[in-house]
């Protein structure tokens, strides 16, 4: 597997053909069946992935507009365009949509759904009907959550802390029920993929010959199955507290409000690893391909994925340093938080080592991958500030936290999702997009993102609290700068939407089977787009996933 022996490339005729020529007009999964009903009742993992892409991009724009709007409010220290109540609802809506309805399902339900069976040489995931059920849970859950807007929405923050969430009326109940339903979507997805990875690998595809994307998604799926039920019981307990006053979180009834936080963060910390592990998984695919060099440290990256998943379960108390936890608990959680940074660091160094002396090309996926490396590094390092007990006392609930998690979630997870979307776009739809406009969009997003959030590190360190509607005059210039940055981000996404839709509207499918020259089954053994059953014959794996052809320059 993957070393520098110079040998005649072992190309099957089919792989060679796929690299050079666009497909003939054979039936593929997109046109094999027609009509809305065929889409709504599909059990084809590829179609379900596309259904999810549409749903999630829609929710992303909804949540994004909430952010745009609340940042406009923050242009002035007093009221700008909305009341304080509306502002609270805006940031709650933004947070709830972005975490539950966008980032958690994003890569697993869209790209992994599409790509995993192709990468494994399988005809579908283990449980195709469960896959469709997962999408319906997502849709129904999202609708129920959005229905809360009819009742005035919720203003508790996406974290739903007690006692406010139990005492306030309005749409909290609907959000709890909706999130509970969406949780099933996540569980079904994870469950499906674990079974698929264990049982549906093609002949010759041993665990250490799998693309690293699969390792990352396997680790993600483990977290989905283990952590999401705890969110489920947390939401149920909150519902019981509201309806029956059970007294679990209410001190007046003998309960403990901090217990809610333990329950909530036991899920919500691993959930951020559900968001970042798939992003890292995509990096492990994109970076070798666009450096034309085998991945550095395959096993280290594979085991780091598992380590992040495992250790990520025992750090949740770092969200509660100032909530009234015991000092012992706080110290233990802080210490372990430092440990969990190690495997992430290993991965970043390995990706850099992969790029070193590689033959790097700057197509859209690689532009976003490089953005990821820079932005995730910043986000990850600032996490260490927040994990330090004494420093966190000052930084907790300030804009420093907001900037940190936007750097890792948006600069990290979302950038990687976009990289993956651009990487697999030709495979999914058989069409290439405009590289020029993709680069422009990337530039707008990168500049805008840093303008928006780098500023917020400074604000937070100087004491600007998060979720505040009014603020001190001295923070206004930075708030204005941050808001203007958000407009650049919006512009970038609008450009992206435009050229992606334009690519779909091309009449002729112009994408070759393997435009990037990758060496994994999803690229080498399928057409672009793939046929409904993925493969004509079950593929047999004979080489490693990153065995690129040696360059003429001789190495």
């Amino acid at each position, binding site marked *: 597997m993957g070393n520098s022996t110079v040998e005649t490339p072992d190309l099957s005729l089919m792989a060679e053909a796929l690299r050079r020529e666009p497909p003939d007009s054979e039936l593929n999964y997109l046109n094999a069946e027609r009509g809305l009903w065929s889409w709504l009742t599909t059990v084809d993992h590829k179609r379900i992935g596309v259904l999810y892409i549409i749903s999630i991009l829609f929710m992303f724009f909804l949540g994004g507009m909430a952010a745009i709007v609340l940042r406009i409010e923050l242009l002035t220290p007093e009221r700008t365009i909305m009341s304080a109540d509306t502002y609270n609802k805006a940031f709650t809506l933004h947070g709830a949509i972005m975490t539950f309805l966008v980032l958690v399902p994003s890569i697993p339900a869209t790209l992994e759904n599409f790509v995993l*069976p192709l990468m494994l040489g*399988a*005809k*579908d*995931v*283990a*449980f*195709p009907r*469960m896959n469709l059920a997962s999408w319906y849970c997502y849709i129904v859950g999202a609708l129920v959550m959005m229905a809360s807007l009819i009742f005035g929405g919720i203003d508790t923050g996406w974290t739903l802390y007690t006692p406010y969430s139990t005492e306030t009326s309005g749409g909290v109940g609907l959000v709890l029920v909706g999130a509970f339903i969406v949780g099933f979507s996540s*569980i079904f997805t*994870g*469950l*499906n993929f*674990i*079974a*698929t990875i*264990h*049982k*549906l690998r093609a002949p010759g595809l041993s665990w250490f010959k799998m693309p690293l994307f699969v390792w990352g998604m396997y680790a993600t799926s483990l977290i989905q*199955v*283990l*952590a*999401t*039920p*705890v969110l*489920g*019981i*947390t939401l*149920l*307990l909150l519902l*019981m*507290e509201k309806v*029956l*006053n*059970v*007294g*679990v979180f209410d001190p007046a*009834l*003998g*309960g*403990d409000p901090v*217990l809610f936080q333990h*329950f909530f963060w036991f899920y919500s910390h691993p959930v951020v690893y559900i968001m970042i592990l798939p992003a890292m998984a995509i990096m492990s695919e994109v970076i070798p391909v666009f450096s034309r060099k085998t991945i550095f440290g395959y096993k280290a990256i594979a085991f780091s994925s598992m380590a992040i998943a495992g250790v990520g379960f025992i750090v949740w108390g770092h969200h509660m340093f100032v909530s009234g936890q015991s000092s012992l608990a706080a110290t233990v959680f802080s210490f372990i938080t430092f440990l969990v940074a190690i495997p992430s660091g290993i991965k970043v160094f390995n990706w850099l080592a992969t790029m070193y002396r590689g033959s790097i090309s700057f197509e859209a996926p690689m532009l976003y991958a490089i953005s990821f490396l820079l932005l995730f590094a910043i986000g990850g390092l600032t996490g260490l500030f927040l994990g330090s007990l004494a420093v966190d006392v000052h930084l907790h609930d300030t804009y420093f936290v907001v900037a940190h998690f936007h750097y890792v979630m948006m600069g990290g997870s979302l950038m990687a999702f976009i990289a993956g979307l651009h990487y697999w776009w030709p495979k999914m739809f058989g069409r290439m997009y405009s590289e020029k406009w993709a680069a422009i969009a990337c530039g707008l997003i990168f500049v805008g993102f840093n303008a928006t959030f780098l500023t917020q590190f400074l604000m937070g360190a100087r004491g600007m609290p998060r979720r505040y509607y009014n603020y001190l005059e001295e923070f206004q210039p930075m708030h204005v700068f941050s808001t203007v940055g958000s407009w650049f981000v919006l512009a970038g996404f609008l450009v992206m939407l435009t050229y992606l839709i334009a690519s779909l509207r091309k009449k002729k499918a112009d994408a070759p089977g393997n435009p990037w020259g990758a060496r994994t089954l999803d690229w080498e053994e399928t057409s672009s787009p793939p046929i409904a*059953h993925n493969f004509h014959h*079950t593929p047999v794996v004979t080489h490693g996933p990153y065995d690129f052809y040696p360059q003429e320059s001789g190495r």
Partner: protein
Amino acid sequence: MSESSATLNQQQTQHPFLQHHFTDAEQQFDASKIGMWLFLVTELLLFGGLFVAYGILQSMHPEAFVEAHHHLDRTLGAFNTGVLLLSSFTMVMAVWAAQVSKRKALIVNLSITLVLAGGFLVVKYFEYAHKFYDGLLPGSFYTFEGGTAANQHIFFSFYFMMTGLHGIHIVLGMIAMGWLLRRAIRGDFSARYFTPVDLVGLYWHLVDLIWIYLFPLLYLVG
């Protein structure tokens, strides 16, 4: 009958219900089992959360929990434990019957399991009715006058939440068993294919497992 359709029928009878993306029945069976065990783990963590909350609140109010739990009828609880254990036995007998293609035994055992499950719920109904009568209800509905320790209502909050969630799972299990019964009568299951019976059996055993812990926690030690 042409040769190709004969082959097809042969494949059908050899591997009924084999889905197209699996290469053989064994792979499908193994994958289904893995899927079911993963689902059971999610149930474990769902109920587990309630156990953790119970543990924390009990450590905060030990006297209240000890005093409150005396209102529970140990005999009825032990009886229900026996009922559920027996139903686990009949369920695993149903799986065995399917494995050795004994259709009648499968139907009989599934039916007995269903009846026992129903019996469990009937006993719970009587227990709940008694609590309602006494005012031993969760949270703000607690109206029982008496007892010395404060916050006894928390115990009953947990009693109703935990046995309630458990009861919901019993009902869902009964629905699954009803579906199995229908398919068993139709003759779907045999030594060649008994996966659904196996999987529902696993679910039912988990429901039993949870009760094995609930019973002593609620009824015996408080």
